[in-house]
Each structure stands twice: as structure tokens, then as C-alpha cells.
């Protein structure tokens, strides 16, 4: 596993909280984030969302959108079309609240074990792949926007 110090600072507090919680608390916190999830607003993207923004192998039908600001910051957004995509919405809200508006370098530093740190070791292969796909596509778009 990556060390917590490998994570961008804005994510460390959240991950420290998750490292100490009981399983039922983990669910409550994730549900809370999921409830706070705000999908991509209309000026950035509208339905039907472009296929290029869709996360592959994600059953939650998640989409990722990235926007670069004039001062070289990255704003990013998600959409989750599957009503059962509670975990995808929770991950989207956590990433967006902590890292949207930061630098490309910060976002590209998110290690892949974020999924297991947030969702716990019980995360299934299929779900883990989908959630990791959200992070990977985000990092891919961020890298593209920087080049």
C-alpha cells in the first residue's frame, strides 16, 4: 500500500478518518458523502454525456469531466447514471470536495489504493475495478489537459 504521505494533502485528513473507523461508521460516512454528491452542472456537460467521458467497466455508469482554469487549476466533475451507484457517488464527492480546484500535479498523485482505503478490504473485484476506473480516467484527463 502507498504511504499516507504519498497522498495529496487535501485527501490525507479524510483517509486518516477512514483508517480509524469501525465498519458501520465507514458506511455512514460514505453514505453521507454519497448524499452530498453533486453531478456535473449543465454548462460543463449535458445528457447524453459523451462516450469518451464514460468510465469503462464501471457498472455505476460513471462519467468524468475536467476543466482547466485560467490560473492552471483543475476543476473536475462526475455524473453517476445508475441509481445503485451509491459508492461511485461517495467516491466522486470525496474526490471533488477535497481535490477539485487544485493543481494537476496534486490530482495525478492520487495512489490507486485510495479505493481500498475508503471502501475497506471487503471491496469486491468488480466494484473495485469500477471505482478505480473513475480515478484512472480522472488522472488521464488531467494529464491530457496539462500537456
Amino acid at each position, binding site marked *: 500500500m502507498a504511504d499516507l504521505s504519498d497522498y495529496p494533502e487535501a485527501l490525507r485528513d479524510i483517509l486518516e478518518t477512514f483508517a480509524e473507523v469501525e*465498519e458501520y461508521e465507514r458506511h455512514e460516512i460514505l453514505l453521507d458523502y454519497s448524499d452530498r454528491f453533486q453531478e456535473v452542472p449543465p454548462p460543463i456537460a449535458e445528457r447524453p454525456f459523451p462516450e469518451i467521458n464514460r468510465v469503462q467497466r464501471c*457498472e455505476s455508469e460513471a462519467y468524468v469531466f475536467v476543466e482547466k482554469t485560467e490560473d492552471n487549476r483543475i476543476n473536475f466533475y462526475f455524473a453517476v447514471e445508475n441509481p*445503485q451507484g451509491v459508492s461511485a457517488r461517495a467516491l466522486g464527492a470525496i474526490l471533488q470536495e477535497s481535490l477539485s480546484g487544485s493543481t494537476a500535479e496534486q490530482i495525478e498523485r492520487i495512489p490507486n489504493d485510495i479505493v481500498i482505503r475508503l471502501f475497506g478490504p*471487503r471491496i469486491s473485484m468488480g466494484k473495485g*475495478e469500477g471505482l478505480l476506473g473513475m480515478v484512472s480516467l480522472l488522472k488521464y484527463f488531467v494529464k491530457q489537459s496539462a500537456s
Partner: protein
Amino acid sequence: MSQQYVHSEALVSTEWLAKNLETPNIRIIESNEDPLLYSAGHVPGAVHIDWVTDLNDQVRRDYLDKEAFEQLMSKHGITNETLVVFYGDKGNWWACYAFWVFQLFGHPHAAIVDGGRKKWEAEKRPLTREVPSYPPTTYKAKERMDYRIRAFRDQVLQHVELQGRLIDVRSVGEYKGELLHMPDYPQEGSLRGGHIPGANNIPWSKATNDDGTFKSIDELRHLYETENGFNPNQNIITYCRIGERSSHTWFVLSYLLGYDNVRNYDGSWTEWGNLVRVPIEK
């Protein structure tokens, strides 16, 4: 006109469920892969049974014993006469898995909701976050009967040597050994990729329609019998990676098609793919 499933009493529709939310002597049970989903909203009156914390033994790789099953039933107000109705996410994988575990104890009245959670949500039927509680009951379980519907690795090896029929219900990539684990999570995987020698690959999802419901009995017979040469008199073992998807196919063969000798190998590929001295095929 399509024929009815052989054990049609083991399948109920979302419409039936909506009409029976408050019918006495029925307990609705949600069982999911995603542990967050029940808390996010469930069918009114439904209780939650988690495959890891409720159904698995916490020390051995095994299921709960008779006493623990009785306690679980009591906790959810289930008696020996209660009709338990299962639904869940992922095309009812875990609902079928829970149904299968209940059958290890021989609970007689059990059904799956056709289409599961996906169909219930798509039809905009009610969901609540209110967790119900029911008065504890006294439940008398039989001793767990593994031999009838559960297969162990030595039995599977013997089955292979006798050229018995197996169904690998995983994806084609998993069956061919191209997919061992997800990126960065090698602990989820197996040492070797491939499948148990002689197994047919019939992914679980081939038994379902896009809305999550099961295909008709004619379509199912065509899939398993015409296309893949299975028949109701065979001794069949189903498996996947950890035994949940294969309990879905076990349900299809045993209840919808009425096959009498189908066992689910819950050790599945996470056991077989790591076992010393067993053969594999790619």
C-alpha cells in the same frame, strides 16, 4: 405460450412483492454485494443479510453453523413457516447466494424476486431508510446439509476425473485465464488463470434479460440443453470465483429448470486456482 418454470413458487415478481409488503408471515431480505446499498434505501420492511458478516463463519472459510443460523433467524423474526423473499443488487447474485445458504439448512419457504433491486428501482417503487425491527422468534434449524447442494474440492477433483459436467459461470476472460485480479489488488486473485478441466463456460448473465429478470424456461432450456448439452439427469457442479455468481446459475438449474443434482462449488476459482496438484485448462 411459454411454459412455467418447474418450481415457479421459488420466483416472485416485483409486482407481487409490492402487493405483499405487509403480508404477515413473509420476511423480505436484501442481500447485496455493495454493503452501502441497504442503508441508502431498501424495500419497506426488508431486513439486511450480509454475506460476509452474517452468513460466513468468521474464522474458517465456511458458513455459519446451525446455532448461528437459528440466532440469525430469530433476530429477524423468521420462523420455520415464514416465506423468505430475497432480492439484491448485481442481478441477484447475493440474493441467490443467501437463498442457497438458507437451503443448506433446508428452509422450505423461499423465493427470489425476479429482476431484484434493479427492477424494483427502475419501476420507481418505494425505498426507505427506515430499518425495521421484528419480535425475536424461536427457530429450529436442521443440521447443515452440505452434501446435497454444495461441492468441496476433493469431490470436484473426483468429478473431473470421472469426466463429470461442470459449468464455469465467470466471464470469458476469467475462463480463459486472461484476468487474474484487478490492477493493484493481487490479493484478490489466484496464482493461476484458466478453468477446471472439462468445464463449459456459460456466464451467469446469459440466463438473464436486460432488466435483470430471468429468461423464459424455453430460452433457458435452449441455452443449457440445446447449446451446451446439459440435461436434468446429469450430476452438475457450478462454480465462479467465490461462489456467488454460480449460486445464481445453481438457482436457475435447480428451481427454474428443475434439475435435481446440481451442486455449487463455493471454493470456486479462488480455491482451485491456488490449489497444489490439481489440473487446470486454459
